[in-house]
């Protein structure tokens, strides 16, 4: 696995080497590291535990079987998956460009690609409105030429989620590409393969675990997207109201419903991260 270059996100998801059974836990861990480490763990887990403690367990079945919840959940899953697919389609080639070619201003391009990682999602939403809104610099042409407007549509949700989630895929794949040995591709090209064939037949299988890890991260990020979605795509049940939006609006009037919805999102996220980690991340 390591020789295949599973860096960064791939290793994070893999959880590192497994501990063997029978070994004494935490033996030889210095106390100055153990105490803050446990504090850190408690800090991250406590809010999730609180959610479980405060959950309206008695009314949970009714809360969760309402049509709106399933509508929001289904929309969330569909949009996050579509955003991940779109990210793969344009993000993997972008990662390849950043890792395997040399062009002036590549450092700047890299910085711009990762910008949505640190940008407040609401700012991303505003920027998307300025670019792709009905009155946006590109959006006004989409509207007048093709009659396409993205705000307030499901496609708008996918665009907003892709904008926020794709950088996770790109940096993950780029890291994997940099760690992968380029000599395999060179060997393929000297044997007569074109560069695209070499990419398709040699590079892609080589970096598959990194792509899978990046895709999972992007999918999870897209699933939780709130700020850019509500700013760019608005909030309409069944069309643009994803789970995070439903949670936020439920909190305004019915905190119990908001907690119930949060539990669903939490369960889905954990299931996906845990399930995919074992199935696809541990290729070797």
């Amino acid at each position, binding site marked *: 696995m390591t020789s295949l270059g599973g860096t960064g996100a791939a290793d994070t998801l893999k959880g590192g080497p497994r501990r063997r059974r029978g070994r004494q836990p935490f033996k030889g861990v210095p106390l100055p590291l153990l*105490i803050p480490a446990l504090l850190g763990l408690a800090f991250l887990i406590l809010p999730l535990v609180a959610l479980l403690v405060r959950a309206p367990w008695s009314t949970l079945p009714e809360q969760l079987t309402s049509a709106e919840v399933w509508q929001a959940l289904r929309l969330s899953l569909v949009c996050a998956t579509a955003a991940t697919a779109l990210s793969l389609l344009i993000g993997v080639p972008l990662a390849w460009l950043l890792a395997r070619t040399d062009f002036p201003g590549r450092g700047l391009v890299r910085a711009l690609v990762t910008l949505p990682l640190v940008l407040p999602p609401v700012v991303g939403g505003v920027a998307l409105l300025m670019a792709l*809104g*009905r009155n946006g610099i590109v959006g006004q042409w989409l509207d007048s030429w093709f009659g396409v407007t993205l*705000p*307030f549509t499901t496609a708008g949700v996918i665009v907003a989620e892709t904008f926020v989630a794709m950088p996770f895929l790109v940096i993950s794949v780029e890291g994997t590409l940099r760690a992968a040995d380029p000599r395999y591709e060179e060997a393929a090209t000297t044997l007569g393969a074109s560069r695209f064939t070499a990419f398709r037949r040699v590079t892609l299988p080589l970096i598959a675990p990194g792509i899978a890890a990046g895709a999972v991260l992007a999918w999870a990020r897209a699933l939780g997207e709130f700020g850019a979605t509500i700013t760019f795509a608005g909030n*309409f049940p069944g069309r643009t*109201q994803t789970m995070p939006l439903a949670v936020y*609006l439920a909190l*305004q009037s019915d905190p119990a419903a908001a907690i119930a919805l949060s539990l669903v999102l939490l369960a889905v996220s954990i299931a996906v991260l845990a399930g995919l980690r074992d199935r696809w991340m541990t290729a070797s």
Partner: protein
Amino acid sequence: MTRSARRTRRTRRTLRLAGAGAAALLALTACSSSDSDSADSGTSASGSTKPSGTVNVFAAASLKESFTTLGKEFEEAHPGTEVTFNFGGSDTLAASITNGAGADVFAAASPKTMKIVTDAGDATGTPATFVRNQLEIATLPGNPDNISSLKDLTESGLKVVLCDAEVPCGAAARKALDAGGLALTPVSYEQDVKSALTKVELKEADAAVVYRTDVKAAGDKVEGVDFPESADAINDYPIALLKDAPNATAAKAFIELVRSAEGQKVLTAAGFLKP
């Protein structure tokens, strides 16, 4: 260095680190308790003393422009005071208050949201209605779609934005539509009145049902259209002194200013109706 000396030294360092961690945690928890401490000392002050110090006002987003003006007037009239505002959706503000936010005054955009606070026993006395607000249709400048009534909004092809029914402006819009016997499918239910208006300001939507005061505050970026059904959906704005107000004296004085003739002048200038 002997082994035992080294060991004591290491233990001491460990303890010191653990101590620092514990101190950091204590500091974090202290933040939440300090509010109630200062609240206790503040409420004991009698109402007759001169207002001083900071007044913390939680107010509905639609009050932003007029309350900011009133805050400046208050600071000028009472040197040594400072008015700080937290503007937001009334529901969100009510939730913060019932969860222990150390505020002095709450001004809500609907009796329903004020009721959240009074039901939790967090307000003193009966909240007073100090202004009322009426809905208006916000359209693009020049009204290119020739919208003249609420019914026009139900026609297909128009992108209309409403507030979510959970927030006061959305509840009022629904009431007005019901009064007119109209059904309207918007493109989006926004989370507060300002974001609904913004969608029109950015020309992403053709119209929004918002408050008259918001149309006025937006200046020439939108155009307002009155509609008769809005008379059936007028929102009362209640204001109340909060029970755990850290600065009750100054808070009372601020509420007095809001309800005074001077305060009403500022509010009606912003488009609010007299109660």
